């Protein structure tokens, strides 16, 4: 299975972290806070699309609410396949970073 790319990894982790509140907006806010950048909405949505297509997240639509001007709201949940993908990524990451913990890069 090909590895998740960076944005997919970040988005998937955010989905897991945010639990029941994982929607496009909340994910964007969370990741923007952590990375310090005001992320473009597309840089969340596209990885989400890909994750959905690969079956790593599930999309659940809530009925339209008045406060969003009658629009739907979509929530995301991780799937077991998503967990497996993250595991794989973590394994690779650990191997790659093994032995670097005490080094500085300058």
């Amino acid at each position, binding site marked *: 299975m090909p590895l998740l790319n960076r944005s997919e990894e970040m988005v998937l982790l955010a989905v897991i972290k945010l639990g029941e509140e994982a*929607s*496009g*907006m909340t994910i*964007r*806010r969370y990741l923007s806070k952590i990375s310090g950048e*005001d992320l*473009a*909405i*597309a*840089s969340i*949505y*596209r990885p989400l*699309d890909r994750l959905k297509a690969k079956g790593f997240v599930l999309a659940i*639509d809530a009925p339209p609410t008045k*406060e*969003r*001007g009658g*629009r*739907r*709201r*979509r929530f995301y949940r991780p799937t077991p396949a998503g967990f497996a993908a993250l595991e794989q990524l973590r394994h690779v990451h650990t191997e790659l970073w093994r032995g670097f913990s005490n080094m500085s890069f300058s």
Partner: protein
Amino acid sequence: MPNPYPPRWAAFVLSHMRPQGDADILLGDLEEEFLYMVETCGLRRAHVWYARQALRSLPLFTQDLITWSLVMFVHYVKVMVRHLQRQRAYASINIVGLAMGLAVSLLILLYVKDELSYDRYLDHADRLYRVTFEGSDNDASIRIATTEAPLAATLVAQFPEVEQATRLRPAGPTLITDGERTFYENRVYFADSTVFDLFSFPFLFGNPQTALTQPNTMVVTADLAEKYFGRQDVLGRTVRWDNTTDYTITGVLENLPQHSHLPFNLLASMAGVEEANSQVWGGKAYATYARLRDGANPKILEAKFPDLIKTYKGAWLEQMLGMSFEEAVAAGQRMTYEMQPLTDIHLYSDLDYEIAEVSSINYVYILSAIALFVLLIACINFMNLSTARSANRAQEVGMRKVLGSGRSQLVKQFMGESLFMAILAALLALGVVYALLPAYGNLAGKTFVVTGEVLLLLIGITLGVGLAAGVYPAVVLSSFKPQAVLKGTLSFGSSGGRLRNGLVVVQFTIAIGLIICTAIMAQQLRFMQDQRLGFDQEHVVVLPIESSKAQQSYEAFRTQLLQDPSILHVAAASAVPGRFNNDRPFRIEGANADDVHDVQLVATSYDFIETLDMELLAGHGFSRDFEADGLVLNEAAVLQMGETPETAIGKQLVQIGLASENGDHFQTIVGVVKDFHFESLHQRIGPVAMAMVPKQFSRVLVRIHPDQVAESLAFIEERWATYEPGFPYNYTFLDADFGRLYETENRLGTIYNYFTAFALFIACLGLFGLASFMITQRTKEIGIRKALGATSADIVFLLSKTFTAQVLLACALAFPLAYFLMARWLQNFAYQTTMGIGVFIATGLLALLIAWMTVSYQSIKAARSRPVESLQSA
């Protein structure tokens, strides 16, 4: 404060970025954040933030959009290809029919483009004009393409807006000899040295400014140089002109493009022509061209011409008419010059004495109309067949709608398919055009090249046709209701049936109309050519008289010729019918001083009337028994002067301007002949006078016995060798010469025929496709009918009924239209053929027959099918 809104444009753009269909989710997310921003940072910052979000997300979303569009495109292509493969026959008929329509239009387009572009390749073509003459009195008016000798120079001298002027004068068939080789050149003109100032003919060798300044110099085209010398750099060479003078070649031009109104291959210097320097304002033998200053208005110049006439031509007129200019004007004489734009000459010139062949804008209109009609028929076919096949796609449409396709999406899908088929048709059409191009060029007498411009036009037409013809089927197909389709209650085959039938009727109306018009035009042409001309043009050999020695020894030549029994008559003349070009003003005795008529003057020998088998109405022809100094007029001349054939005999005519020692030169009318056509039958017969002036003879006419043409020709050739040694035996037949007056029309007639046949063929193609489809749709019905006892004949009759009705309706519409159109067109001719009912009936029957044949194969097959099979497959 009302709910703040994000920037409208940003929201709008973003709403189109999600082909997945979840644009509302995206917008909702953004709007929540936006409202939060409004609360925390204020409206302005929020707007800025939103806009930045939109802009930064744009490139990322676009990638998705492109990928998705590509995927959908591939899907639609797959579906279309599958569909076409399943219905190969109908698809091919559709494409082939459209391809033929496009091919025909393209061919016509090539012709029309060429015709419209005559002379435009010259520098400053929009400032070049030909000066023409217009004159009228109380009886008649004339417009002539040539003018007096001194006009050109006078224009330049007197009018500052005329930058430069030049004259051209046809030299007639000229004998050119180079050492051994001798040829008659037919496209020879005398020209002033200023001709190259006006006309930017590209020089290969030589200097345009000096090429024709000296007498006895000439400029040739590259082709001519090759013909005589086998090479192009022939500056300084000399050739012999008419076996008398040596001319030096001072320039070689690039070959002229074919769209020149004056296709010459040799220009000789006017400096050597004595009469060209004449300051006499009489006679009109020179084509005068002028270039106006940039921005000059030709109309303003034209307004000054009556004064010009008064100043310069006035003196000559007074001398001719014997009255003052004012009196002449008061008596109704009007004369002026007109500025004819150079680029108008080829298509719009309708004057007498053109120095080269012209075509007519009418041909362009007719051909363009045919192209439009053919294209229309092809489009109608396309539409009809596409909608007819729609039944097979109803289920697909239903499914798509169920799965969420919007109407516009479906329309786009089907329009895309139409466009694709149109493009295929265009490619096929291109192939056809390329294949036919050489043959077509021969037929039209031109060389055609498919330029980039033409290709661009083809693309435009294809797109236009594809879209136009695709709209209707697309709309029909996308309108199917899913419930009806899936339940099976949609009535196949009848969707739009009435419109389809109507379109078939339109197609056949157009085709039938075209056929009738073409038939009548051909009839008129034949009528003109078969008209009793008033003389017998067959079996008359025409020989040119070249040298003055030959002129003098004509009588001897004649005697020699008559020794052979196959030679029936011999005569000589200054011109042959079809080439009269010498009108002179005459006045009959006893008429008012201003009662002057322009009469064609032809010098003829004894026996001219007998040789051409003309009919004498009164008096006698020139005969050795009578004095030779008289005139023989034709009926028209005599009537114009107010006499009858009988009363005219013995009256005197004076030719204005022909002076002799005793003052005016009077001649007696000794004979009157019945009118004969000496021009094409576009024109009424004008007045003609014949006189015996041996010095002007330039042609020998020999009537030979019809049965021994080859022998007679051989005999004449032998005698010719002694008569005109050194000149090639260059005979022609009078009827061939005369027939050349109709060459353009003949050629075009053939073209019309082909294109009309195409139109009918395309219509039938459409009918064939439609018919076979409709019949397939009715298989079940036919099966039931047969099971209930109908015979094959009954079925065929039933199926043919619809189409017959359509053709008959088309006839009913086409007949009056064609009749009206042709009646208008025939008015262009002085001599008209009658439109008999036969043409109409024959065309109607032909259409019916073809329609039946087209439909019959399928009908018979359907009628003979076994009911069991057709009902089982239900």
